C-alpha cells in the first residue's frame, strides 16, 4: 500500500495523469482536441518549451539557488541571429546553428563567471543579464531586418519527418534520452546532483564545483539557443521578444516535473511531462470561448492548484 502511494506521488505519474485528464477534458470541450494532428501540434509547442526547460533543469539541479532568468533573452537573441545568418537559405542552417550555440554558450559563460567568481546570486546575475540581452535585442533590431527561416528549418519543425512525426519532436526525444543518460549514467551527471544536494561535501570529495556551475549555465544558454532557432523555424520569422514567455514558464515546467527549486533532486523526464502539461493547459484555455481576462485568471488559479500536488515545503517543526 505504502509503495503504491509513493508511486502515485511520483511527480512524473502525477503529470502523466493530469495530461491524460486534460486531454480528455479538451476533447469534451471541443471535439477533435485530442486528435492525432492536434496532439502533434501540441507536442511541437511543448518541445520548444521543453528544450529551454532542459537547460533550466540542470541549472536548478545544481543548487545554491540556481535559476536562469536570462533564457528568455537568449531564445529571442538566437532567433534573430539564426534568421539573419540563414536568411531564408538552407545553406545557412549549419553556420546558424554554430553561431547560435556560440552566442548561448557565451552568455551562459558570463552568467557562470558572475555566479562563481564574484559569487553573485544566480537570480540577480541572470536578471541583470536579461536586461543586457533585451538591450542588445533593441540594438540588433534597429540595425538589421529580422531575417527569415530557411525552408529546411521550417520543414524540420513543422512538417512530418520520420514516421509522420516532425523532426523537432524527434530532436526533443533525443535530448530527453541524452539528458537521462547524462544525469544518471555519467560522472558529470552525478556531480550535478552532488553539488546540488551538498556543495561543500562535493567540493571536499574533489568535484570542481566552480567549473561544474559554469558548465551548467553554458548548457542552459545553449539549450535556450537551440530552442530559439527552432522557434524561428516554427514561426517563419522572428519578432520582438519572442522568447520572453519562456523564462518563467520553463521554471514552471521544471517544477511541474518534480525538480526541487532547492536543487539536487529531480530529473528531466518529469520536466518533459511538465512542459507538455503546461502547453496542453494553455491550449485548452485558448479553445474555450472566454476572453483574455478570464483565461488568465483561470490559468493562474490552475497553476496554483497544480502546484499543490508538487513538492510543497515542509511544515515547521520544533
Amino acid at each position: 500500500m505504502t509503495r503504491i502511494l509513493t508511486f502515485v506521488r511520483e511527480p512524473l505519474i502525477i503529470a502523466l495523469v493530469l495530461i491524460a485528464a486534460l486531454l480528455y477534458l479538451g476533447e469534451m470541450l471541443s471535439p477533435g482536441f485530442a486528435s492525432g494532428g492536434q496532439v502533434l501540434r501540441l507536442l511541437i509547442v511543448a518541445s520548444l518549451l521543453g528544450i529551454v526547460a532542459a537547460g533550466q533543469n540542470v541549472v536548478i539541479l545544481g543548487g545554491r539557488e540556481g535559476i536562469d532568468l536570462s533564457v528568455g533573452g537568449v531564445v529571442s537573441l538566437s532567433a534573430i541571429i539564426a534568421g539573419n545568418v540563414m536568411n531564408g537559405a538552407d545553406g545557412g542552417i549549419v553556420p546558424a546553428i554554430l553561431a547560435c550555440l556560440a552566442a548561448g554558450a557565451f552568455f551562459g559563460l558570463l552568467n557562470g563567471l558572475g555566479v562563481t567568481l564574484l559569487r553573485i546570486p544566480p537570480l540577480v546575475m541572470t536578471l541583470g543579464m536579461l536586461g543586457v540581452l533585451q538591450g542588445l535585442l533593441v540594438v540588433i533590431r534597429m540595425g538589421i531586418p529580422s531575417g527569415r527561416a530557411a525552408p529546411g528549418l521550417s520543414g524540420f519543425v513543422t512538417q512530418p519527418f520520420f514516421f509522420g512525426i516532425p523532426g523537432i519532436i524527434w530532436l526533443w526525444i533525443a535530448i530527453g534520452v541524452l539528458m537521462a543518460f547524462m544525469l544518471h549514467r555519467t560522472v558529470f551527471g552525478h556531480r550535478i546532483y552532488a553539488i546540488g544536494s551538498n556543495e561543500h561535501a562535493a567540493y571536499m570529495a574533489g568535484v570542481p564545483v566552480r567549473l561544474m556551475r559554469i558548465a551548467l549555465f553554458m548548457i542552459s544558454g545553449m539549450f535556450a539557443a537551440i530552442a530559439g532557432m527552432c522557434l524561428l523555424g516554427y514561426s517563419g520569422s522572428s519578432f520582438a521578444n519572442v522568447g520572453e514567455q519562456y523564462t518563467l514558464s520553463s521554471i514552471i515546467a521544471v517544477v511541474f516535473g518534480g525538480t526541487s527549486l532547492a536543487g539536487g533532486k529531480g530529473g528531466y523526464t518529469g520536466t518533459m511531462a511538465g512542459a507538455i502539461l503546461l502547453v496542453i493547459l494553455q491550449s485548452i484555455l485558448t479553445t474555450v470561448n472566454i476572453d483574455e481576462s478570464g483565461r488568465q485568471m483561470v490559468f493562474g488559479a490552475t497553476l496554483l492548484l497544480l502546484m499543490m500536488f508538487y513538492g510543497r515545503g515542509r511544515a515547521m517543526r520544533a
Partner: protein
Amino acid sequence: MADVAVTPRARAGGIRKLLERYPFLPALVIVAALLLLNGVFSPNSLSYRSLTGLLSTYMALIMLAIAQTYVVYAGDIDLSAGSILSLVNVAIVVLMERWGGGAGAVLLALALGLLLGLACGLVNGIVVAALRLQAIVATFATSIFFTGFALYILPVAGTPAPALFWRTYGGRLLGVPFVFYILAVLVVLLLVLSRTRLVTQLLAVGDDQQAAFQTGLPVVPVRIKGYLLCGLFSALAAFCITGDTASGDPLVGGKMTLYSVAAVVLGGSALSGGWGTVVGSLLGALTIGLINSVVFFMGTPSEWQNFVQGLAILVVLMAGVLAGRRARA
C-alpha cells in the same frame, strides 16, 4: 612599522563598522556619483524642476522596491508586485471615473485601492507561507491571476484619471511640489515601521526560519504579514503611477516587478533574507532612474540606450551584492 601596519586595518575596520551601521552607504555613493554624472552631461538635469520630475516619475518604483523589500527581509520574493500595481491602478481609475471624479470619490477609491492591495498581499501570503508553495513560482502564478483580474476591470489601456487626482500629484502645495510631501510621509512611515516588532521578526525569519520557529516566533503569520506590507506598498506605488501617467493601464506594472527586485539588491539587501534596509531599496530605485537619465543625457544613440542601461544596471547590481557581502562579513 607596527603602526603603519595597524593603521590600514583600523581604517578598514572603521569602514566596515560604518557599513554595518548604514548598509545603504554604497547605494548612497552610487546615487551621488550618478547625480554628479548627470550634472556633468547636462547641468540642467540637476535643477530643482528636473529633480522633482525625476522623483515623481520614479516614486512608483521607489514604493514598489520598498514593497519588495519587506518580503525579501523574510527570505521570500514577490513576482506579483508589479501586477498588484497594475490591478490597483486600473481599479482606482475605473472607480474614480464611475463615481464622478470628485474629492470624495477619489478618497474612497484610494481607500478601496489600499484594501485591494492588502487582499492581494493576503492571497500571496497564504499561498506561500500557509500552503508552503515555492515563492518564485507561486507568486508568478498569482501574478497571472492578478493581471487577468486587471484585464477584466479594464481590457485596454486608456481610461483617464480625474484631473483632480493627477493635478494634485504633479502639482504644488504651499509652494512645495506634492511629491516631496509624499516622500516626507513615506520616510516617517518607514521610520515608524522600522521601530515595530514586525520588521525584526521578518528579519529573524529570513535569517534562519528554523531558529526563528524554535524561539517561538509564529513564522507563518510573520511571513503573511510581510506579504501584506508588500501588497500595501504596491497599492501606494499604484497611486503614484496613476498620478504620473494620469490613466489606467492593465499591464503598466508588468515590467516593474523585476526592476523592484533589482532595486532591492542595489540597495544592499540580501535576497536570501535576514539582512537589508528599506532606505537602500529607495536609493536602489533612484539608481535605476538616474542610470536611465544619465544614459539619455550622455547622448547615447537611441538604439543603444537599452543596452547601456542594462549593462550599467548589471554592473551596479554586482557592486550592490559585493558591498552588501562586505558589510555582513
